[in-house]
């Protein structure tokens, strides 16, 4: 075998490992790709939270492009995201439906919304993760973009930031509206 090749071999091995790390370390291991993209919203029907008389079910997600946002009064990152949702509500940007996840106290969700504002069109109460598991949710907040046929088109893991809204969600919603 060519001797000179042996001398560069460590460099080649290093380059390959470095390339793997360069790609691998920029990925977020907690962001699990959803298998539900481009599939219809799963069958679910949730009771309303205290103080509202309509819950949220699969049928409510048809007819119009909408967001389904998983939140909880216990979820700190949801508070980070909350002002943006309020802003979207004020601008009438898109209907946002909420799934109030794993509240141990029936008053906790409504109190939280009374305190920070309520951006949601419809809210379902999901104390036992029924809908959340059906949606393949791994944590809060998560937000699904649902098209007018009730098909899930996108999943945002973690809080929506202003940048994610402007660069990803808003263009997607506009495109889905045109379809």
């Amino acid at each position, binding site marked *: 075998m060519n001797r000179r090749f042996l001398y560069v071999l460590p460099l080649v091995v290093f380059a390959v490992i470095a390339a793997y790390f360069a790609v691998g370390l920029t990925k977020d*291991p907690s962001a699990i*790709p959803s*298998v539900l993209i481009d599939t219809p919203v799963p069958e679910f029907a949730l009771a309303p939270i205290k103080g509202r008389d309509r819950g949220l079910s699969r049928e409510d997600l048809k007819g119009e492009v909408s967001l389904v946002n998983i939140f909880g009064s216990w979820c700190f990152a949801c508070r980070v995201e909350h002002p943006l949702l309020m802003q979207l509500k004020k601008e009438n940007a898109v209907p946002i439906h909420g799934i109030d996840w*794993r509240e141990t106290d029936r008053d906790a969700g409504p109190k939280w919304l009374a305190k920070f504002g309520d951006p949601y069109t419809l809210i379902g109460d999901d104390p036992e*993760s029924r809908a*959340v*598991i059906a949606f*393949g949710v791994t944590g809060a907040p998560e937000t699904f973009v649902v098209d007018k046929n009730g098909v899930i088109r996108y999943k945002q893991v973690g809080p929506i930031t202003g940048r994610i809204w402007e660069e990803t969600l808003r263009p997607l919603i506009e495109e889905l509206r045109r379809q």
Partner: protein
Amino acid sequence: MKALFLGLVLCLAAVSAGAVNPDEMLDDPALEARAREISKGLRCLVCQNQSIDDSDAGLARDLRVLVRERLVAGDSDGQVIDYVVSRYGDFVLMRPPFKATTYVLWLGPALIGGLGVLAVMAFYRRRRAAGARRGTAPPPLTEDEKRRLETLLDDRSR
């Protein structure tokens, strides 16, 4: 026999209770044992390196309850697992399935091991070939060489 089996199940349950709360458990020990077995193969999506059987996370608890409800409703083990996989993808399985996207994962180590064995074999074969070349008898001495050898030997013996 039945009592012995029940005792065994109870013993096992006692040592490996994990994160399963008593209020989640099913009354039917056979069904509960199946639920435990399924739970051990399903990943907790919150903690990722634990199974839902080990995890104290809220979502893991709700998944354990769901697994039990489906078993009670008459689902087979496969149907329960398929449902959870249909929601979360193969990632939720502690043991990745063997299919086109995971061939590299499953076959990679064997392949690299095989290449190593081949390399070692090639190394020894080459060494043996080199040894054999060295071992072949040298060409017989010429008349001239024989004479020189004899004079040398004669000198020594003197």
